[in-house]
């Protein structure tokens, strides 16, 4: 059992709460750094995808999990980043500059969406972002001179200091570095006044406003930051796939992103990466399970959708805090070992807060 005895406010927002944190995260970093030497290339590529989706999930988590603004069109930001990256890399610009442009342009689009969305709440915001996602997807498909239309566009490997990064390992390290930078950035943002303002807006807009938080500014900022992260993820995604087409940024992709953060655990930074890992591992697990099932079920085309749906339903019904919530329970059980009480995490039922009366 470990007791954290806090004696100052600084202790409350420290990045590492105790020595154990430092140890475990250092071990995780070492494992991730060592991965290309010990794991086969296929798994390194999968890990790269986890990192890329993790960055995108981090963005959506900031918007949905911490500011309480749901976006059903997040794949559009991913697409903006990816296409910017593809076009500018094609013009021979260096990687760092191109990445900055992709993130910047996505953030700008995020502001454009965020401003009109200020008046909208709940499901209306969802439908507005859904509509935005559809329109952007159509723009990708129609603006053939830039995006190559439905036939897609090839993407060159990233250029860093005159070298093209072509090997799986090199690109993995690039993604790893960016993921670490983004995560640290978000974690620091969340313990700063900005992040606390976001959380206050999520919990109650009225009380946040009455505490002097400028709603319009922080909501737009949240959209911009979230879009910028999605833009970075889109840029990396474009390089990883080496080929992009509009249907990679469809509404289904947006829903996948949402599914990812809900399964990972809404409102936790860990959740973004846990969800990403889950989303990437899921098809592999299904492929493994296929052979065990009778042929009529195992080979059916709809199996994956059914499993996805059931997993999502299961998480919403039984584990609303997602994978991270499950881990929290296990950790608490270990920490409190002989004294864990069964109803410790039981949710209290409240009367539904009306969306209409706001």
């Amino acid at each position, binding site marked *: 059992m470990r007791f954290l005895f806090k004696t100052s406010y600084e202790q409350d927002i420290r990045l590492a709460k105790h020595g154990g944190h430092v140890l475990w995260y250092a071990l995780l970093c070492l494992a991730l750094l060592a991965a290309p030497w010990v794991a086969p290339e296929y798994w390194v590529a999968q890990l790269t995808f986890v990192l890329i989706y993790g960055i995108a999930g981090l963005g959506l988590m900031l918007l949905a999990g911490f500011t309480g603004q749901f976006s059903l069109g997040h794949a559009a930001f991913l697409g903006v980043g990816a296409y910017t990256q593809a076009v500018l890399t094609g013009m021979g610009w260096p990687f760092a500059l191109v990445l900055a442009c992709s993130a910047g342009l996505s953030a700008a689009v995020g502001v454009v969406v965020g401003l009109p969305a200020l008046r909208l709440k709940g499901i209306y915001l969802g439908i507005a972002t859904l509509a935005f996602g*559809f329109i952007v997807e159509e723009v990708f498909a129609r603006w053939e001179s830039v995006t190559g239309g439905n036939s897609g566009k090839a993407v060159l490997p990233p250029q860093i200091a005159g070298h093209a990064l072509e090997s799986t390992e090199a690109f993995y390290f690039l993604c790893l570095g960016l993921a670490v930078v983004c995560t640290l950035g978000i974690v620091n943002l969340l313990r700063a006044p900005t992040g606390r303002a976001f959380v206050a807006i999520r919990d109650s807009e009225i009380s946040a406003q009455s505490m002097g938080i400028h709603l319009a500014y922080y909501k737009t900022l949240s959209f911009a930051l979230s879009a910028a992260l999605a833009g970075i993820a889109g840029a990396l995604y474009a390089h990883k796939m080496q080929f992009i087409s509009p249907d990679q940024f469809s509404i289904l992709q947006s829903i996948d992103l949402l*599914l990812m953060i809900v399964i990972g655990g809404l409102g936790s930074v860990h959740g973004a990466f846990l969800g990403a890992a889950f989303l990437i591992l899921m098809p592999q697990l299904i492929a493994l399970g296929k052979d065990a099932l009778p042929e009529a079920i195992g080979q059916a*085309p709809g199996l994956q959708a*059914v499993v996805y*749906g059931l997993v999502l339903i299961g998480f919403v019904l039984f584990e609303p805090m997602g994978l991270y919530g499950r881990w929290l329970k296990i950790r608490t059980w270990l920490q409190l070992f002989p004294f864990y009480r069964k109803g410790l995490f039981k949710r209290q039922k*409240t009367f539904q807060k009306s969306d209409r009366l706001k």
Partner: protein
Amino acid sequence: MQFLQLLVSGLSQGCIYGLIALGFVLIYKATETVSFAQGELMMLGAFCGLVLMKLLGMPFWIAVVASIAAMALFGVLLERVVIRPILGQPAFSVVMLTIGIGYVLRGLVTMIPGFGTDTHALPVPYKDEAVQLGPLVLAAEQLAVIAATAVLCVLLYAMFRYTRLGVAMQASSQNQLAAYYMGIPVQRLNGLAWGLAAAVAAVAGLLLAPITFVHANMGFIGLKAFPAAVVGGFGSLPGAIVGGLVIGVIESLSGFYLPEGFKDTAAYIVVLLMLMVKPNGLFGERLVKKV
């Protein structure tokens, strides 16, 4: 003349959007949540009709009534088994839940071997007939859609206006807690609202089937019904139908007069404009909370 022809085909398409939007609004009014599985319920209704007619050889009208009844039962069951346990949780949980239900339904239908992945034609008695109305030529399928929507609207109106059940539903949609205090069984009414929404979705599916064929992915049309619901005002039943008609007509006209690409996005451009100008929709009520 071209214009009138486009108008009528837009109206008939709009009726479909309106019927799906009606499902959203019924559920939204009763339970304040939005069902993303409405399109899939529609697809299921169409498949239900197909099975009854083709495999079991039921006559058309009996099959229609049976599949509507079956879907209503399915809706009630769905609410009881899946939705009710998370009553009182944030609305977003229900949205994710219904997205999950949509995935499962679509996947399950596709898993039926030799049936789910193919496109089927629903054998309806009025197939391939056309009606000459002055200079207009109307397909019987389109007329059937418009007529059935009108009948359904009258029925729903009568139900909400004249039956105890309808009045109770109205009361609980205004204020659940107050209705509960007045002895209205709010929980059971929520189940009924889901059943009603599923039944309406089944009607939409059966009407759409002769026009676009029955297919596992036909439910994606449900995403087009969101704009319809928003344009009409999310909490208004007549608004859903009007919104659907508006979206249908705009889509049909923009497909003809505007450059390619506008047809598919017209609905979404309209909804964005609507949300900016009048977020409550054409018929939406404006409720203000007093602190």
